[in-house]
Every structure is written in structure tokens, then in C-alpha cells.
């Protein structure tokens, strides 16, 4: 079986290899052409080493994400250093922080605006399940309720090392994907509610009509 390789960390040292292997099995259930398979590997090598994330931070986890970008942790070593402010140019969205009721449609809209293939990383307790604010009236209990999540990084907030580890897990996921023929692991239509959200413009209110009311 094809095993995704991360430089200087042995395959066995990663946690949750079972899920990844099940995924590989599913993707490779149909046979692959040698030439096309080699092309896939080449594309995935390039993609996994230049993951561009959207700068999307709502609270504390965002500060740890900034630390990740600074001198000590320096995620440029892994090819994540380009952060994009526009969802159109981003490969992944890192949901760093609490998602509230008011923010939920905005997050969904940002996700919809991103071009495929796209990935979601849920950083911190709040994004995973609501975290310490689970019982609040205004907090969404987990972003996986509205968008499909690829990697969960627990912590409140997670240490920068944990975020790096999570990003490597995502790289491994990217490395096994297929573009030419065969199955792709992305959620299919119907599995997740992928309908775009309704975007309404501000209504034009007729003053005369209102004053008559």
C-alpha cells in the first residue's frame, strides 16, 4: 500500500494511522494507471508542500497561529507560510476560535467561496465542540455541523507545536489524493449540506409605504 511520507518523522510515529489507511483503501479500490498515478504523486507532492491558509481567526487560537508564523515556530519550514486574506486564493481554512450564531453563515459563505480542492482544520476546543462555551445560547457547538472538517487540533488554545502536527496530518491526507480517475475522498453531494447560502442584499425600503402602515 502507498504510504504518505513526511520528512524526518517516521510513519509509525503518527497517531490515528488506521483512519488514513481506511481512506487509502477506499480511494484505491479501483485500479490506477501507472502514468496517471505518477502524475498524481507529482501534483500531490507540490500541493502538500505549499498549503496556503486563509487568515481566519476569531479569538485566542488566532494569536497562537500568529506565533506559528513568527520566528520561533516558523511554519515556512513546512510550506505553510503564505496566508491569504481572500478565500479565492486559499487552499485551507483554519477555523481558529469560537464560532457564534452570528458568525456561522459568514464561515459557511467563506467556505463556499474557496476553490476546490479545499480543506478545513478545526483548531481549539471551541471550533471542535464549543469548548468552554458549549452551554452558551450564542455558540455553535462544533464547526463540523456546518462544514466538513479534515483535521481536528484539540487544545485551549493548542500549542504551536500541536498546530504544526495537525498540519502535517493534513499533508499526509493531501499526499494520498487522486486527481485523474478513481475515487476522490471529498464529501459528495448530499452527504453534507453543500447548498450555497442565500445572500440577500439590503432591502430597499419604501418610506412612503412605511409611513402609511
Amino acid at each position, binding site marked *: 500500500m502507498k504510504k504518505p511520507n513526511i520528512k524526518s518523522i517516521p510513519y509509525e510515529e503518527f497517531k490515528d494511522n488506521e483512519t488514513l489507511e481506511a481512506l487509502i483503501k477506499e480511494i484505491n479500490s479501483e485500479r490506477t494507471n501507472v502514468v496517471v498515478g505518477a502524475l498524481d504523486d507529482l501534483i500531490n507532492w507540490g500541493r502538500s508542500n505549499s498549503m496556503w491558509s486563509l*487568515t481566519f481567526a*476569531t479569538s485566542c487560537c488566532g494569536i497562537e497561529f*500568529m506565533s506559528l508564523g*513568527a520566528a520561533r515556530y516558523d511554519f515556512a519550514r513546512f510550506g505553510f507560510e503564505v496566508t491569504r486574506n481572500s478565500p479565492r486564493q486559499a487552499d485551507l481554512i483554519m477555523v481558529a476560535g469560537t464560532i457564534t450564531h*452570528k458568525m456561522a453563515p459568514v464561515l459557511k459563505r467563506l467556505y463556499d467561496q474557496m476553490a476546490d480542492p479545499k480543506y478545513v482544520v478545526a483548531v481549539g476546543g471551541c471550533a471542535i465542540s464549543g469548548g*468552554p462555551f458549549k452551554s452558551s445560547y450564542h455558540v455553535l457547538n462544533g464547526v463540523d455541523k456546518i462544514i466538513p472538517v479534515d483535521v481536528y487540533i484539540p487544545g485551549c488554545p493548542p500549542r504551536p507545536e500541536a498546530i504544526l502536527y495537525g498540519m502535517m496530518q493534513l499533508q499526509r491526507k493531501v499526499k494520498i489524493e487522486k486527481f485523474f480517475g478513481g475515487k476522490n475522498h471529498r464529501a459528495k453531494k448530499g452527504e453534507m449540506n453543500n447548498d450555497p447560502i442565500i445572500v440577500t442584499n439590503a432591502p430597499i425600503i419604501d418610506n412612503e409605504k412605511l409611513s402609511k402602515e
Partner: protein
Amino acid sequence: MNPIFIDIKEFPQRMQEYKDLKGMDFLRELIGMDWGEEGLGVIYILENSDTHENLEIAIKTTDREHPTLPTVCHLWSVAELYEREVYDFFGIHFTDHPDMRRLFLRNDWVGYPLRKDYDESEAINPVRMESEITEDVQREYEIKEEAELKKINAQTNRISGDQYVINIGPQHPATHGVLRFRLALEGEEIRKIDIHCGYIHRGIEKMSEKLTYPQILGLTDRLDYLSAHQNRHALCMCIEKAMGIEVTDRTQYIRTIMDELQRIDSHLLFLSCAAMDLGAITAFIYGFRDREKILDIFEEVTGGRLIQNYNTIGGVQADITPGFAKKVKEYCEYQKSKIKEYNDVFTNNIITQLRMKGVGRITLDDAISYGCTGGTGRASGWACDVRKRHPYAIYDKVEFKEIIYKRGDCYDRFKVRIDEIKESIHIIEQIIDNIPEGDYKVKTKPIIRIPEGQYTAAVEGSRGEFGVFIESHGEKSPYRIKFRPMGLPLIAAMHKILKGTKIADLIAIGATLDYVIPDIDR
């Protein structure tokens, strides 16, 4: 705390008198209250900015259907947003308020969450996935004789149709979080600004009403995560004051050192982010490099990097480690040498100076009226440091200067913070060598109950005054808890600052005001 209750009819005149005759020009807090049977009300905490004398006023109405109270936003400008918050949470209408609508929650939210009879069920307020419609219409209300509100007219008064509107946020790197501005432009100039908050409103105040006091401590760190120590310090201080717990000297020293380290940490992050917003990546890297050294100290003592959960009722969670004093002293020496580097690389850069000098001025009167405490207020010449005004911990025993600038522009706001790093180092150096021996924590009862009454406490957070108000009915959890956000007054003042400035200056102004959105939204 014993607020004086004033009758609604006398209220506007009395408030005017307090402001004009007694010089109560700073509205410290405006707290919405739900006293159940006794009705809904508001508590005002006023302060004289010269004598630092405080005055607590309260007002209430028994009408739960259509509660109306007179506004005070013509006296203190910050009340405009504070009253919108009260309307959002309690449904109290303020008569003559120019812009009465929700501040944090969606327009289509049902009910008023901080009322005691609010129904939290998911069925009433599900997660709505359609975009919120931004209403540009202000409804006017008329009070009929039977004190019933009636909608009579609607008029566009916020941003009218023929203005060019730009939407910034909630997902925008320069808003430092999830804040949304709607700007009406004329050419490059900003004519009107409409601020939408609440994208990170987590309802901490309502949640706290169901939690015990030690449980609430965990939430304060997540309000303004760059003043985690100070926030928690304020809440612990308030609870200790209410229960009559005397903390040891050792605790006071440790808390003071930690607060100052946190302040340096926050100001370094401010410097980094302000630099990055203006396009200087190098200064960002420098700031974060030095910030990591503080985080190392935090991690060694408390176990947490960003959120430390260190203060606790009656003391701190764990004693300082043996090498703590040495490490802190080493760090202070290191940091002093680096400040020159920031100035060389960023502050004295001609582009920085041109983009900051004379941009986004706040006058002294505006700063007080909007209640802009912290570095922003001090840059405008207002001596508003809580450490000097109402000393706590051991701030009355140490010698330090309150940094005050006069012009109140972006450059001064920036300089205040750079100088405050030096002052914080100065404070730490005075006390790091003589931390007294003793217990780091006094024993408290296993179940913490606060005696009946209202209590307040305030500390100087990293970006202003952070206050805590607790009303207790003698239970394990508070009846009402209110945190004074440091950032909301700054946001309120933005309207005034931005009018007539160029849109490119919005970035410099936003960066130097130094707000943190989770602290505004709570």
C-alpha cells in the same frame, strides 16, 4: 456599593446636575439589571476625572412589557453603545436615543437573553444559516399615554442609498478579529461609519449566572486573552473583597509582577500587529521573538502559554519556581536593549511617522466623554491609569510614572505603549528581588458564597480599565455579573475619529486603538 435610586421623572435633570455641577464627566459603567419582580433597571457608575470621586446611580421601571428609560447619551457619548447593549440584552428602550437597535445579536433574534425569564431553547433561536439583512432604517417610537410604545414612522438615517458604501469585515486582517465596519465614502473620505459587533459574542455574562465562582474564573482569561492575568486578577479581587479575604503579601507581589509581564506581552503584540498592518513585517518578527521569552516564563510558572489560569480566589494556583526571579531579571535586561531596536527599525522610519503623525486625533474631552481609558486615553492627555487612580495590589508601594502624551494621534498612542513597556520593566525591577516569604494562597471555604450585595473591582488591563461588577443574592453563583469591556469605548469613539479621514488611515487608527474583539463582545 450602594447606588442611589432616582425617580424616572427627575432623572434627566439630576444627571445633568451631576455632570455640570459635580464634574462627573466619566461614565465608568452602565449596567443593565433585571431584578425580577421589582422590574428592570440600569446602574450607572460615574466618576469625576479630576478628584476620582465615584457616584453610583440607579433607575428602574416596573413595566416588563415595554420598559422605557431616559437616555444619557447626550451627556456621555459612550452611553450610545452601552445603551444599545442594554437594549440588546434586556429589551429596555431608551427614549431620545438616536440609534436604538441591537448591538451584538442578530436583528432577527427572538427575546432578550439576559432577562431572567429568557427561554434558551434551540427551537426559538436556532443557528440561522441565511445572511443577516443589514437594515439601514431607524424606527422612531412614540410614547402614548398608557406608556405603550407605538411604531409611527421610519426614516433612513444611517447610511442612505446614494452614498458609496464599503464593507470591511467580519473576515478582514486589519480588524484584528471579527469586527465589521460599514463605511460611507465620498471619494476617499469617510463620511459615516456603522459598526457591527457581536460576531464573537459568547454570552459569558449569562453563562456565569449558572456557574459557581471558581468556574467563572476560567472564562475571564478568554475575554481579552492578552490581559488574561489582569482580567482574572480583577475578578479574584472582587470576590475577595466581597468575602473579606485578605491575601498574603507574597500573593500581591506575584500578582503585580505577572500583571506587568502580561502588559509587556500585550504591548509587544500591539507593536508587532500595528507594524504588520502598516506593512512592516520585520517589526512583527522582532516583537514576536521577544514575546516568546515572556511566554516561556509564564509557561514555567503557570503551565499555560497564552491562557494561564493562574490567579485563584485567595491567591494563585501555584508558587513561583525557584529560578523565577533570575529569569525575569535576565528578561528585563534583554528587553531594555531591544526597545532601541524597535525604534530604529520601525518607529523612526519616515513612512511610519508620516502615516501616524497627526492622524486620527482624539481630543481630551472626547477621550473622557467616550471613556477611552488605557493607552488611548493617556495619549490624549487624560491621566486615567487605574493603578494611580484607585491603587490595588502593591501599586501604591512602587514608584512609576504615568505616561501621558498630549496630541492624541496615532503616533502618540503608539509611543505611549512603547514607553509603558519601559515603565513596566521599571516596576518589575523594583519588586522582583524582595518578594516576601509566606503562603502563596490562603485557605478558603470549599464552597464559595458571596454575601448579599453589590461589589465592584477594577484593574488596569493591557488596554484600559477592566472592571467587574457582581450582584450576589448569597448563592453559589452570582445573580448578575458584568465585565466592563476595555474595547467597547474605543469602538464607540471610532465614529468620531474617522469622520472626514481618508479610508487608508482607518488601518493605522484601528491598529493603534488596540482593541481586542472577544473583549468587546464578551
